[in-house]
């Protein structure tokens, strides 16, 4: 009975939790309910993944209005994978949020923070699960609006400005997206993604479809912080509360990438639109720029969270590079990196939060000699950093393997060396942390500092362990990603 409605419950559970939390107005209750909701989301996502592995596609007609008239929730292997990632990171973030919120957010705002977290979770899950282009916009805005609030909860006043800037950019992005969808609706009369895909075949070459593609691309690229549309991201991640940074870094941009994949391969895949635009080349150039420029910018940051944020921009470049390659290996690399980088970067942000919790600063100057007083935190950070570099036996290595393989398949030798050369920049910025933490004498800021409390360290370490685990046993990640790539490429002519 419940099995039939899993797709709806995936969104409804966190969505309902938010108003309940607001009504009860208790921090502890809010936290407990958020925990329950997060775990339920992960469980439902896993159940859905198991289902789609068996049957291929789970389609759920919301309110029993048959698609394409009603809103359809449509789960295949691609978004089931994304749902699992979101559920996983929410579940990990839950226990961490307790101490993180206590330290960084005024107590009377705790329950509101948790309500926003639930809304954000519902929005992100909704984006991933829905099969309706306009419904996707609504979820996009639900997640975005709650995200703005979560970022504004940050302890510094700069968080407010960061949130405001994100609001402007995010709204422009979402509006561009909805303009694109509007044009598609005008041309086809449908909003169902699957239906759109079939009907677009008949109207290919029409100029509004081209315009729609451009609007959707720019809008989503803003949300996924594709270089050079990334200006909102570093400050937003840097000044948000730790647990929020960690959750967003792992999910928000990743979900946007999923939307891009869905539109490029499922919706526009069957039309001839791509032949008339050099989309692939544009993405290739922008990815390369992100991989090199943003990564290099990371190496010059003074604040650890800024460093991680810029590193995220570079890592997003890997994902879009895989999308630009548009072959089985490249796309597998992109999807697996979407997951692996989500896990790794969340771990790193959680550990950065651990450092802030004790040191109350994330500036490199204050982190000198940190490894003496917080050895576990630093060790975990180094492991996560190695994954960013792509050292074998970490999750990051898997990506690089597939990206290089995908590049080899295109036959362009210069592309082959791009991902590997840019990972050297990651060595550079990761080693800045290593040298600061391990090779300098502890400064006055570190006197009396202890290791972070277990409740903060444990969730981070779960993700660090997963980073290593998914580097060694890739049957789940690569297995799912390569099937997802097959599904997406199957959408192509």
């Amino acid at each position, binding site marked *: 009975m419940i099995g039939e409605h899993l797709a709806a419950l995936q969104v409804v559970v966190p969505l309902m939790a938010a108003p309940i939390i607001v009504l009860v107005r208790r921090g502890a209750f809010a936290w407990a309910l958020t925990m329950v909701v997060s775990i339920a989301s992960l469980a439902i996502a896993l159940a859905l993944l198991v289902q789609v592995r068996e049957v291929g596609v789970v389609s759920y007609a919301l309110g029993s209005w048959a698609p394409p008239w009603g809103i359809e929730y449509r789960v295949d292997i691609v978004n089931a994978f994304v749902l699992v990632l979101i559920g996983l990171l929410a579940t990990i973030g839950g226990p961490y949020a307790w101490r993180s919120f206590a330290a960084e957010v005024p107590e009377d705002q705790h329950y509101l923070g948790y309500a926003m977290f639930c809304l954000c979770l519902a929005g992100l899950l909704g984006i991933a699960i829905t099969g309706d282009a306009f419904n996707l916009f609504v979820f996009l805005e639900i997640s975005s609006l709650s995200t703005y609030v979560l970022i504004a909860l940050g302890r510094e006043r700069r968080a407010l400005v960061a949130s405001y800037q994100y609001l402007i950019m995010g709204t422009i992005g979402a509006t561009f997206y909805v303009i694109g969808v509007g044009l598609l609706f005008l041309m086809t009369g449908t909003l169902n993604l699957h239906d759109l895909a079939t009907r677009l075949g008949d109207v290919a070459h029409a100029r509004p479809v081209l315009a729609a593609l451009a609007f959707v691309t720019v809008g989503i690229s803003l949300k996924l912080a594709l270089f050079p549309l990334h200006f909102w991201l570093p400050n937003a991640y840097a000044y948000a509360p730790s647990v929020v940074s960690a959750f967003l870094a792992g999910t928000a941009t990743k979900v946007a990438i999923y939307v891009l994949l869905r539109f490029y391969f499922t919706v526009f895949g069957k039309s001839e639109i791509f032949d008339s635009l050099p989309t692939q080349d544009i993405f290739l150039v922008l990815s390369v720029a992100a991989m090199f420029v943003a990564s290099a910018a990371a190496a010059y940051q003074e604040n650890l969270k800024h460093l991680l944020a810029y590193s995220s921009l570079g890592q997003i470049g890997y994902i879009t590079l895989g999308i630009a390659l548009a072959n089985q290996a490249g796309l597998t690399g992109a999807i697996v990196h979407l997951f692996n980088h989500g896990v790794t970067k969340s771990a790193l942000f959680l550990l950065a939060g651990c450092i802030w919790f004790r040191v109350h600063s994330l500036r490199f100057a204050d982190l000198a000699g940190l490894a003496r007083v917080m050895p576990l935190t630093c060790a975990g950070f180094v492991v996560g950093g190695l994954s960013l570099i792509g050292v074998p*036996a970490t999750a990051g290595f898997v990506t690089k393997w597939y990206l290089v393989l995908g590049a080899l398949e295109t036959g362009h030798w210069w592309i082959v060396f791009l991902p*590997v050369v840019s*990972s050297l920049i990651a*060595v550079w910025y990761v*080693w800045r942390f290593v040298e600061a933490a391990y090779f300098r004498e502890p400064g006055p800021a570190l006197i009396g500092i202890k290791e972070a409390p277990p409740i903060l360290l444990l969730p981070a370490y779960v993700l660090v362990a997963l980073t290593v685990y998914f580097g060694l046993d890739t049957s789940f990640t690569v297995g799912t990603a390569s099937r997802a790539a097959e599904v997406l490429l199957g959408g192509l002519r």
Partner: protein
Amino acid sequence: MSPLAALVAALAIPLIGALLIAMAGRAPNLREAITLLTAVLLFLAVASLTPHVLAGGRPQLALFQILPGLLLAFRIEPLGMLFALVASGLWIVNSIYSIGYMRANREEHQTRFYVCFAGALGATMAIAFAGNLITLFLAYEALTLITYPLVTHHGDEEAKRGGRVYLGYLLTTSIVLLLVGIIFTWNVAGTTDFLPGGILGDHLGKAATGGLLALFMFGIGKAALMPVHRWLPAAMVAPTPVSALLHAVAVVKAGVFSVVKVIVYIFGVENIAGLSSVDWLPFMASLTIILASIIALRSDNLKRRLAYSTVSQLSYVVLAAALLAPLSIVGAVFHIAAHAVSKITLFFAAGAIYTAAHKTEVSQLDGIGRRMPVTMAAFTVGALSLIGIPPAAGFVSKWYIVSGAAASGQIGAIIVLVVSTLLNAAYFLPIVYAAFFRPPPAGDAAHGEAPIPILIALVATAAMTVALFFFADVPLQLARQVAGLPD
């Protein structure tokens, strides 16, 4: 113990040892006892495998799939067997030496040191027994990272700089070139297993073969083929036992081992013999041999001179393998062992001199042979071996390399070897001469030999250097199996 159990033991013992050493951190005696015990057990496990491998056994172990179609797998063949024997055998001696050196010089962070050392040996065993390129690569990178804390052991500005160069060169080459080479191989051949005769077959064109070979040869930065040799002298900032580990036991040996392994088991000697697009390799190796020797000749710092000597000697192995003649392959394999025992002797001697007399420059060594006769005698044995004078191990490998070059009519290689022998003599013999026949400078502080553990280690490796000349059967037999020659 069954071969499979011994294989598992050889891989697991160093890691378990590292764990126990970390737990025993507060009790130095216990910690060092565990180190020694681990080293001995590891050697026994490896040694117990030797008869089986000599008889043609090839134990293998597949753990799990890293990527679809790519297993984390181990398979022992003669080359890996020899490398594992050398590394695990020298680790025992090195541990004895480390205990003496670290205590005498009152080094800090000794627990970290011993843990990383054991970890490095674990990675080395995984390299030696790797059954395919992906396993090799994994262990190769692990070795780089686990030796980083050893190289930067002193933690000062100089160590940090040395560490940067070390990591920079090794990670850059391995990620940018080696990894791409491995993926290319996988893409072309559909496998990365090490198989006799190679796996590339005729999948690749002439130019692509040459290109792929370049990716591997420069990608394996640990083999220090010029111009990717700079990390080796930079890593000299480390304590002497670490230098010994880098130069003799694990790191550079892992490099040349991988070179030989790739040439023999990935490319296949017969596949690429006579291919004009791979001719650059013997040329580059020759260039490295000569240039590095000249730099060694001009270095006054003893450890730096030894480091460049290593760069030069490593290219002996590369050159020998690149000659693609069966007898020279035997020489290449044997030289891995011969250079290991000789060079570790030289480093131990340099460390002993530093510990006892606090001298680091060649020009300070006048007359030191009178105060430290045992040390300098051992140094002389190591030097003679590397010059290639019997009765020392270095002679045997040189003999085979020259025979291989002569048999395949590669006169250029013979000339390079002769010139380099002269250069070796030119940078080693003056040290020996000065130590024994020049008077010590006036006002020199009185000192005797280094502490006993250091001397024991020193004499042991010097004895091994000579023993390897007289009892060369087992390594030669293994080497002949690698080259595909009848026993």
